[in-house]
């Protein structure tokens, strides 16, 4: 029998030239959210974006290359489309392409050379968002490439919660791509909770490129959830902790069905004393391929980092490849990682069956436990999403 050969990067490059580039600028602005179709709302809801909820500080929707809605209700928090913000604030250019370089790869280059749109979110010093600011990046037209460039700024002592839901209409026939550059600035003692939910579709290729900088006493929390089919997604955000006592947490929950490819990492550079980080990922495959990466680099005494990668390979021919990396560059760093890839243990199933659960329900409880990363501020809709993914896994486990 031939050995299955492992490629370190199973996600192929997107052939951008085959996609239609200059498209998607003509979708009309929708002041009234009730005019958005029920189907689109439903898709957005599965990505955590709720247009009917009162528990949102503001809403931004970008369909292909058109910003179709942008509205903020809370004072102290600013939400603009980047094209408007660049005109309004000359100083924004100091934040534009500062955490990421345009020549990083072909995707950042594409975003740089095309008329990228996106959101600008700023929490003024001391402001706290009572509810998350939600943004939806939506793909509609066949063959479109969505180029996005977002800027998030949390000024000193502010607290900002952002929920980004990425989705598409149900047209799964044609190839489409989403390229998203995000630059996130967390100032002194500020806190940003950034939750991203991907609900793309089988023919969509996704390349988010994210840079984060956290100053003294600041906190950045990332929750990433991808439990729905996608053709391929590859990302490896990088957070630099440049101030004393800064913290970054990355949680990822990944479920790959047959046909989905995910290469998901998180990189944290601990540049100052007493900075700390934790990267936790849970990856489960029922047939897809997941590469789970993590890198923590300690550059200052007293910094701490922990990396945890857990994978569960169920029947279906899938694969999980974990690459945890630790780099201690000075004495006095404390870095650790634990990684495990396995199956659902028979003794656990039987243990739960001996408490009265059927085999299928026992598997459900175990999977639910496995995916249950303590997620700070996870909206209830996402818990429901995870539940429905678990139901699907229960079915496919038989």
């Amino acid at each position, binding site marked *: 029998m031939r050995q299955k050969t492992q490629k370190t990067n199973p996600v192929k490059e997107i052939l951008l030239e085959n996609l239609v580039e200059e498209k998607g600028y003509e979708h009309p602005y929708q002041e009234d959210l009730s005019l958005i179709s029920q189907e689109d709302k439903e898709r957005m809801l599965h990505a955590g974006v709720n247009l009917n909820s009162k528990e949102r500080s503001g809403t931004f929707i970008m369909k292909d290359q058109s910003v179709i809605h942008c509205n903020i209700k809370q004072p102290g928090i600013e939400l603009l489309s980047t094209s408007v913000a660049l005109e309004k604030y000359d100083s924004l250019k100091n934040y534009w392409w500062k955490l990421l370089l345009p020549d990083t790869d072909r995707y950042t280059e594409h975003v740089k050379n095309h008329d990228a749109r996106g959101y600008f979110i700023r929490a003024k010093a001391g402001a706290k968002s009572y509810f998350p600011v939600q943004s939806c990046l939506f793909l509609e037209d066949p063959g479109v490439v969505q180029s996005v460039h977002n800027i998030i700024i949390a000024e000193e002592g502010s607290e900002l919660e952002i929920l980004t839901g990425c989705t598409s209409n149900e047209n799964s026939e044609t190839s489409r791509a989403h390229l998203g550059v995000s630059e996130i600035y967390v100032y002194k003692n500020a806190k940003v909770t950034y939750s991203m939910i991907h609900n793309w579709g089988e023919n969509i290729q996704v390349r988010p490129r994210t840079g984060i900088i956290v100053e003294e006493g600041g906190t950045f929390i990332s929750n990433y959830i991808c439990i729905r089919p996608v053709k391929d997604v590859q990302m490896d955000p990088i957070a630099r902790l440049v101030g004393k006592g800064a913290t970054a947490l990355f949680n990822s929950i990944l479920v790959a069905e047959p046909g989905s490819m995910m290469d998901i990492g998180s990189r944290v550079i601990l540049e100052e004393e007493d900075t700390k980080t934790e990267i936790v990922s849970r990856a489960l495959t029922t047939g897809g391929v997941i590469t789970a990466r993590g890198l923590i680099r300690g550059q200052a005494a007293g910094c701490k980092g922990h990396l945890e990668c857990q994978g569960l390979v169920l029947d279906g021919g899938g694969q999980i490849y974990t690459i945890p990396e630790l780099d201690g560059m000075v004495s006095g760093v404390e870095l650790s990682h634990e990684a495990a890839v396995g199956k659902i243990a028979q003794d656990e199933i039987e243990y739960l069956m*001996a408490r009265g659960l059927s085999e299928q329900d026992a598997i459900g*409880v175990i999977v639910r436990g496995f995916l249950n990363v303590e997620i700070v501020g996870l909206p209830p809709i996402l818990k429901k999403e995870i539940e429905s993914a678990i139901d699907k896994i229960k079915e496919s486990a038989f």
Partner: protein
Amino acid sequence: MMLQIKDLAVSTNGQNILKNINLEIDKGETVVLFGPNGCGKTTLLMSIMGLGGYKIEKGKIIFKGKDITNIPVYERVKLGIGIMFQRPPTVNGVTVRQLVKLCGDEDLDVGEIAGTLRANSFLDRSVNDGFSGGEIKRSELLQLIAQEPDLVLLDEPESGVDVENIALIGKAINKLLDKGVMKYSNGLSLKEHHTRRYRPGLIITHTGYILDYVPADRGIVFMNGHVVCGGNPFEILNIIRDKGFEECKKCDKKHKRQIQ
């Protein structure tokens, strides 16, 4: 009879572990199963529970008049069999509180039953994750109390447990089995309680320490996969404590000669 085991033979990994077991347990009766390591005590409990890896070669298990020899585990649980595992696995991400609710029902006040077992400290931890010996047993008993089974199978309830915990665990077992000196608020005397006792128990013990706390009714000795002796559990325990299982081996040899 609550539980009847007839001519039971069980193998695991191709090895015959239990040979020709006959055992009956009546309602309200607490039976203690003694025997050296590897004699098949746990195999018997697992076979009654119907867990995988244990193959019934011949014989029958009858519970509450129903032949359960070949029915799935969860159906046995529904019929009223509950088990306390000796070394249960860790289930990550599932808390003791969640599991106890799954054993009983969603409205169960877990905190209340946890109080008597001093289990509040680990209710919101993952099941058995880094638990001490005592915590494992208390978590197991908590699940059993929530489950309210009609037959209680206890696999070495005292193993890996310190003295203080044994007393606590003994008390919880007595409560499950309506044994010992308890406080009841319904005005009935303890004697009346004991005569109404319904739930039988089958306890495996290697050391016998649990008998210091749980007044069992009958003792059975297992050797090499069959029953070699039965009688007063305290008398049997005294002999085992004094002589080890050497005395039992004598009977085992005679038993073998009789079969031949």
